[in-house]
């Protein structure tokens, strides 16, 4: 069977502007979009660039915009799309394109770093001879958030980031904050809550739910963000009640 892909191209060394190349290749409906991209590269055009690593949706390398929506190229099969027509492959939105489908992902990792306290709370050299206890219920409070693979699909589809506030800390960073804030073992929870409510922090989220819709790991992203907001309000209230402001 023939499949046609319309692929975003940009070479910073030679191109003033981006353009699209159309490739028609042999492929089966059960194959991954990533398989198609590799086939293009290996048989048609060796200059195509994209990221890949595990090829089964756990490393988070190949977040792309496929037919207008953020998704992992290794997790989407041809038959997930209307393959009688062209499938349009573009880089993730929001990020700056370096080459073809490869974006500068550093802002993503900077945000992730920005939500963590600066002081190290745990030491690898401490001789802890016992585990800390945590009930199943306590552990479940952040289980959903642990699915995050840092692919950046949520950034590439968040209307706040793409259209309103470039500096918004972003869904994945809030998820990571939520993961620690809701972990009963965390000792610097207040510090983390303080950081996440800074300008461009958690309050920047307008609950568009698009991150939840596109998340390749089906994380209830918006819900986790709302829980974090609720937690901040609860903490404030308890501080007000005890008069310790």
């Amino acid at each position: 069977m023939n499949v046609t892909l319309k692929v975003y191209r940009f070479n910073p060394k030679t191109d003033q502007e981006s353009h699209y190349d159309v490739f028609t290749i042999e492929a089966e409906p059960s194959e991954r979009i990533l398989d198609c991209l590799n086939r293009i590269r290996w048989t048609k055009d060796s200059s195509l660039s994209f990221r890949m690593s595990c090829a089964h949706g756990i490393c988070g390398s190949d977040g792309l915009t496929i037919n207008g929506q953020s998704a992992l190229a290794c997790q989407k099969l041809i038959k997930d799309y209307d393959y009688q027509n062209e499938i349009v492959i573009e880089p993730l939105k929001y990020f700056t394109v370096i080459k073809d489908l490869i974006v500068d992902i550093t802002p993503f990792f900077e945000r992730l770093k920005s939500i963590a306290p600066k002081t190290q709370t745990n030491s690898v050299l401490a001789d802890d001879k016992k585990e800390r206890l945590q009930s199943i219920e306590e552990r479940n409070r952040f289980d959903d958030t642990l699915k995050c693979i840092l692919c950046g699909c949520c950034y590439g589809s968040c209307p706040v980031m793409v259209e309103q506030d470039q500096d918004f800390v972003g869904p994945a960073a809030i998820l990571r904050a939520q993961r620690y804030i809701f972990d009963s073992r965390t000792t610097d929870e207040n510090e983390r809550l303080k950081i996440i409510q800074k300008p461009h922090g958690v309050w920047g989220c307008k609950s568009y739910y698009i991150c939840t819709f596109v998340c390749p790991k089906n994380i209830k992203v918006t819900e986790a963000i709302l829980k974090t907001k609720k937690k901040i309000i609860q903490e404030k209230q308890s501080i007000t009640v005890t008069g310790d402001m």
Partner: protein
Amino acid sequence: MIHKYDVVIIGGGIAGLTAALTASSETCQVAVVSKVYVTRSHSVAAQGGIAASLGNEEDDHWEWHMYDTVKGSDYLADQDAVEILAKEAPNAIYMLEHLGVPFSRNSRGKIEQRRFGGHTKNQGEAPIKRACYVSDRTGRAIMDTLFDQCQQKNVTFYNEVYIKQLLFESNLCCGAAGYDLATGETRIFHCRVVVLATGGCGKIYKTTSNGFASTGDGFALALDASLPLKDMEFVQFHPTGIYGFGILISEAARAEGGILRNGLGEPFMEKYAPSLKDLAPRDIISRAILEEIKKGNGVTGKDYVHLDLRGLGKEVLNNKLPEVSSFVKTYIGIDPSQTPIPVAPTCHYIMGGIPTDVEGRVLADAKGTVLPGFYAIGECACVSVHGANRLGCNSLIDLVVFGRRAGISILEEVKKRIFLPLPSQAESMVEDKIQSLLESKGTECVPVLRETLQRLMTEQCSVFRTGENLEQALKQIHQLKKRLQNVGLTNKSTVFNMELQEALEINNMLRVAEVIVFSALHRKESRGAHFRSDYPERNDQEWLKHTFVQETPIGLIKSYKSMDIGRFAPQKRRY
């Protein structure tokens, strides 16, 4: 550009990050260099668990863990190293727990443990719950925690930098040279201590659970430095890869009650391992599956069998095997609670590697000469705790225990080591190689060479091997190496030139494949994952020894190191 750090770690998986986190301090600046973004390292794909005799579910002892590991290794593991692994495993888990790893918990709030292949109570009596886990995303969760901790501790990351060459001065490693994948710019790392943590080489096979990055780069760096590789004939094939994809279905699926069935619907493992059945070690199950297929008992006569998870119930699938369930659904459209999963063995792990001592220090030869300031950890290293066959869950614990030991050793060693001068041609060595590849106009193309290699390794050097096939494979690899000389690149760009990177990688893959085949050809016995149909028995008298192979101008040469039997004397391996 020259970057100066006390320690440079090449590879940022769980071993690399554990060592980085341990060694990093105000007086010890650590950089991690990786050809992928660190969080994309293949450690994230580890699913089922990490072994330690915590005894949270039932009575357990490190000696039992040690026994299982030695027996699982078909008695080729070094028992002093296995003793360290088994003894230190519980504290390594506690360390991870304190760093924040979100282990699944039992009703008493302790780290929950489950059964895993080859792990038993009281030296083989029955399966034991020894695998700690984070549902079925254990590797991902450990990586995320270590990454967060490294960020907080200001470990410096050089992502998407490809290391082409180790730098030596008076036979001591003083740095590494490579190039930035995004710009093509040369990068020199100058340091007191170098650590290789580059992972495995599954991509030399057609069907593998490994990611695209697993091309054996660290092995090739060691070969370049005239160092030997140890026990490379031992390649693990995981019994349950999704048929056609090779994507891993964790052993945890069988630990939770999954059963392998042949085309007749029979649960066949009891014929091959009457006591542990579906929880026998991987080498035994992979052979059993292929035996069934050979007998015509594959599903609908094809080359796969079924992994039946229908008995587990939706709750177990959702809570304990969510990733596995979603992989099956995404890639083959199957709901595992309703339909059995087509599976076949998939190349998963290499037991051999760069020889090291128990502190992770690289050994220059079979005699055990330590190379100061040079370490190897994780899958690229061979300590050796896995011998001829690794047990499930022993890889992750190997990464953490020996990653940490290396880190501690480095903290001391770094005080004693100086920055040796860099070799004068450091930059030009890399630049020239890249320039010549970019200018190459030969008629061979990388994808064809790679596919040929993957096919021949799969056909001739997989689960079952014969001298004849291995001879053939070796000849074909030599031809491929010659053909590689005549490679031509059509992409001349220096910005994310994937063709260039793959041209460098295929060179590594061919050399590693040659060492594997050469080692396998000369080991004329069957042990663990190395099964010679022409020598089907284990032969302790002649072959209870480690293989060492290195490159020389006249080709590969081999030597052997006999081993001291430790606490557990070799016995017939029955499960």
